């Protein structure tokens, strides 16, 4: 079966500082993510995991390598094609939530659907449905400043699901949350994956990593320990 995401020999360099020193953030990474997978990418700071996630999410362009998502080769797409592709196929969740403070929770969730041209009544209904799914139905008219960190992250997750993306990418989704709130997000991710959403998360959080089906370890821009299953998951499965 064709994987949902297939990356071959991805490379990404950055020029840093005044002298333009080259940092090889991603050095020849290859991986496949089958549909319905729940993959965690772990590694120390500066290992290139966020850079890899950016490449996988088509918000950054690799310097070399191939990348296909949902059967389409995204390397070489124009910016317009990439933007539209992301809108309809990929959802993002970030460490800092990045909700628009001037909109309510429901309006934040509606935003991607409005961009995709979904009629107002339809997108309102779906936004309410998604907020109920993440447990925030009573808070849909609150602005982000009126929500806790965990609640904001839930809204961000609902927003990421707005256009029914094939792939959900999360970069340190529990990074700014306390342990208890983090657990709630981890539980939500588990539910999402059980309901069929393909997830790729980048994290320092061991709890989150252990909740994933697979964990890959990165160091210095390469995958170091390609593990098929985390020990916890293997035991559960057995």
């Amino acid at each position, binding site marked *: 079966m064709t994987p949902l995401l297939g990356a071959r020999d991805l490379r990404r360099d950055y020029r840093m500082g005044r002298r333009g020193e080259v940092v090889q953030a991603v050095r020849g990474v290859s991986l496949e993510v089958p549909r319905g997978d729940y993959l965690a990418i772990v590694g120390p700071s500066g290992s290139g995991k966020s850079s890899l996630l950016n490449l996988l999410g088509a918000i*950054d362009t690799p310097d070399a390598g191939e990348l296909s998502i949902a059967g389409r080769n995204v390397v070489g797409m124009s910016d317009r094609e990439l933007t*539209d592709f992301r809108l309809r196929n990929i959802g993002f969740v970030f460490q800092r939530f990045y909700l628009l403070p001037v909109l309510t929770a429901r309006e934040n969730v509606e*935003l991607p659907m409005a961009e995709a041209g979904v009629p107002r009544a339809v997108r309102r209904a779906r936004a309410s449905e998604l907020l109920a799914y993440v447990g925030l139905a009573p808070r849909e008219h609150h602005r982000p400043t009126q929500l806790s960190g965990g609640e904001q992250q839930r809204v961000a997750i609902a927003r990421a699901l707005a256009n029914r993306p094939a792939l959900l990418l999360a970069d340190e989704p529990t990074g700014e949350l306390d342990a208890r709130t983090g657990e709630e997000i981890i539980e939500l991710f588990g539910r999402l994956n059980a309901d069929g959403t393909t997830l790729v998360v980048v994290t320092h959080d061991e709890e989150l990593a252990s909740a994933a089906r697979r964990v890959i370890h990165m160091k210095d821009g390469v995958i170091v320990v390609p593990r098929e299953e985390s020990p916890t998951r293997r035991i559960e499965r057995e």
Partner: protein
Amino acid sequence: MRILLALAALRSHRVRTALAVLGVAVAAAMLLCMVMLSAGLRESFRELLLARGFQLRLSPRGTLPFDTEATISDASTIVQTLAAQPDVVTVSAVLGAQLHVEQGGEGVTTFALGVNPAAQGDYELLEGRDAKAPDALVANDAFLAAAGARVGDTLTFAAGYDPQLRSFSGERTMVVSGRARFLYLASGQSAVALELRVLQDMTGRAGSDEVSLFMVRLRDGADVEAVRAWIQEHVPRVDAISTAEAMQRVDERLSYFRQLGFILGAVSLIVGFLLVTTLMTVSVNERLGEIAVMRAMGVSRLHVIHQILLEGLAMSLAGGIAGLGLGLVTARYLNSILSAFPGLPEAIDFFLFQPRSAWTALGLLVLVGVAAGIYPSWRAATLPIAGALHEEAVA
């Protein structure tokens, strides 16, 4: 959604937005004033010239009407010549001079117009009877106040006055038969009007039949320029000045104000532009993370540009509308200053409000608002998504 986002973004920083709108309002007020200045004087003057329906004015060659003391002799012959032109309906000959009246031992000097009351275009009768008799004249309020006279009074007018000897010459007794408003005189300027022949007689100009000016009314639909050219050819001692040409000549004299209006208007637009573009750039810089996420989410570059441009436009529009009222008040104040120009007819306004002025100012502001948003919106739209997210995380 984009309009909602734009307005919400502006509302979220109330103080900043209010200050920026105030700045744009002040710039808009100045712009409106300058647009009104550019158009006002011309329109105001044109309305004044056409107030009585005379489309042409004939003055001594090389002069503007009443610009110098030069006169045109053999006026009757010229009137006959003009009457032969089929498009000419009325010719009004006017002589300007100074007359003096004794008041309390001193002479009160007044500007006097010698006219044909049946065909004059210089004054409107407000009270009493027109000056249709040889011993009758009409006067304005300024003269009546200075001379301490009323309608019906008999006064002795003189064409000459020696202040050293305090003696008068060329005297004639006249009755103030009516009160009038003189259209082309400055406010507060004392004036009387009497029969042309009488004034010529008093000032010793009867023999040469001198006048200062002819005003010519044409039939409806006549080609003004063609008649002007005909007059120029057949009466070469005069300059025939159409309304358009008179306006152009006055334009030249007062071109300074038009150019000042243009320069200050341009400066206002530049200031407004700088203000809006600075505000929008700062606003974009503060929201780089949000914008990067929107782009990551799939919002297109074009829509990001629309978003930012809408914010700039909203600010310019709000400032423009607020500036409209401020501009009208400012224009009134500036007009009151310039109305003190010596010799300026009372009816002339430097700042004349026309709806066209407001639309022009608003239109320019809209353009500026859009232009001001170009750089910040381009910056937002071409943001490298991953780089911006990384910088936000680091910050």
